[in-house]
């Protein structure tokens, strides 16, 4: 069975009377790195949060690895999952936030082992060994016992990536991972993400880093006003945008 890693068909999200997502059609294949770009307010982050059910969709169909997100399909009906069941599916999807959201009362290594120990019930020793290796991979072995408040933004974000990787996710979601960083700290986070992409991780990245999108991503999806307007290889989308909205957006940011 080969499913798309992410499959969205006509995904809608309505909050109050406002339609945030107006029918998103979008797929991500296994091992693909896709970035979502577009003006702020276009629904990029909302859509990303729908993929791991932090936000509930109000219409359409959204599946990860063939399983509808937040629901169980049986007899052509969708049964809503319990909080605990949704939590289990989220455990397989890593997420990195704009504002890092490291647990402030825990050290770097405690942040990384929290998921494996609490959710996957791994023995602490094994989780610690794995966490140490992950911190080394993101270049922060020396900061294992530092609290988030003692780390720079770039370091915090790299710990956050290690925390997500510790759950052995099959898919990683990045929600503007470098937007809250000082310019000189952006590079270290992007380097970790590049390394991850080269390793074959499936990634969906909401970003304003056009250079990163062009260099690392297999495809780029341009979103505007709750829809995916263009989607394709970066060079195609950046160099020959077919829609007027994409053209005027790229004229401003490139």
């Amino acid at each position, binding site marked *: 069975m080969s499913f798309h890693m992410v499959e969205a068909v006509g995904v809608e999200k309505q909050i109050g009377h406002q339609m945030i997502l107006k029918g998103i059609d979008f797929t991500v294949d296994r091992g693909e790195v896709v970035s979502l770009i577009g003006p702020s307010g276009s629904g990029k982050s909302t859509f990303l949060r729908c993929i*791991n059910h*932090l936000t509930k969709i109000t219409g359409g169909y959204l599946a990860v690895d063939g399983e509808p997100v937040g629901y169980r399909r049986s007899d052509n009906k969708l049964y809503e999952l319990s*909080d*605990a069941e949704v*939590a*289990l599916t*989220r*455990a*397989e*999807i*890593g*997420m990195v*936030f704009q*504002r890092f*959201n*490291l*647990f*402030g*009362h825990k050290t770097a290594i405690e942040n990384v082992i*929290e*998921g494996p120990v*609490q*959710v*996957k019930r791994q023995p602490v020793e094994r989780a610690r060994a794995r966490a140490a290796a992950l911190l080394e991979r993101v270049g922060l072995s020396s900061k294992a016992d530092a*609290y*988030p*408040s*003692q*780390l*720079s*933004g*770039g*370091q*915090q974000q790299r710990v*956050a990536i290690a*925390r*997500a990787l510790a*759950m052995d996710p099959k898919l990683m979601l990045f929600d503007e991972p470098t937007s*809250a*960083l*000082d310019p000189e*700290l952006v590079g270290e986070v992007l380097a970790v993400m590049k390394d991850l992409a080269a390793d074959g991780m499936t990634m969906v990245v909401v970003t304003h880093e056009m250079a990163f999108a062009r260099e690392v991503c297999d495809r780029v999806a341009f979103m505007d006003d709750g829809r995916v307007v263009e989607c394709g290889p970066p060079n195609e989308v950046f160099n020959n945008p077919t829609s007027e909205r994409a053209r005027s957006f790229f004229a401003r940011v490139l």
Partner: protein
Amino acid sequence: MVTHETSQDINDPPRHEHMEVVPRRSVLRFVPPLIVVFVGLALLQSVVLNPNFEWPLVGSYLFSTAILEGLATTLGLTAMCMLTGAVLGIIIAVMHRSEHWLVVGFAKVYIWFFRGTPILVQLIFWYNLAALFPNLSIGVPFGPSLFTVNTNTLITPFMAAFLGLSLNEGAYMAEIVRAGIGSVDTGQEEAARAIGMTRLRAMRRIVLPQAMPFIIPPTGNETIGMLKMTSLVSVISLSDLLYSAQTIYSRNFEVIPLLLVCCCWYLLLTSVLTVIQGRIERHYARGRHSATPQPGERT
């Protein structure tokens, strides 16, 4: 002359350390301390030296068995009610954040009711519960009952006091816990759920520990308040500190000395609690200071 002076000032500017500094002295500055000394002396004369206060009698009752037993009841009741109130408060605060409107509604009505009625009325109400329900039973509503007990045997004065004070405290603690939870960034819960935690586990492992610095200091205030509030249970004839004193002065009519005995104990206990409270507050203030700055983060 005038021009000569100014030019000298410019060439040789005055230096603060070379000149004598004359502080501003007002004749009125002696007034507030004088008032304090005057009022102090007046109080000393009218309270300490006034024989009607019967200080020797106060001394003799301070450590009497009845008073010490009352003191123990007061302390025990305070501890039990604060503990139960805190647990109830956390439960109600978490219910307040539920996704189900009925659960949220229950939490709101609970807080509304117990904060909206006087604690004295609540205490008398619990004490008279038997008038409302002569028997209490556990079972299915409108169905068979599994277990029945006579209300008067269950609701002793201590039980009524415990129920009244804890349920009331639960409402106030719920508001404190709610404010504490609200002060933790929502990103913390989101990050916890993103690594596969359920809402409850995220609350217990991630949100509540970080809300504690905001919850514990006001809880200290509540404890001090609770210590004094327990004196209300004297109206339902529970032998706390105040009621024990009242029992004694209803026999010997030494009302003021026995109330002074109570005041001495209450003051001593609240002073001890205030010192502990201050330490706890300083401890958490330190933690918060080091945790707030986010280096490298763009603001």
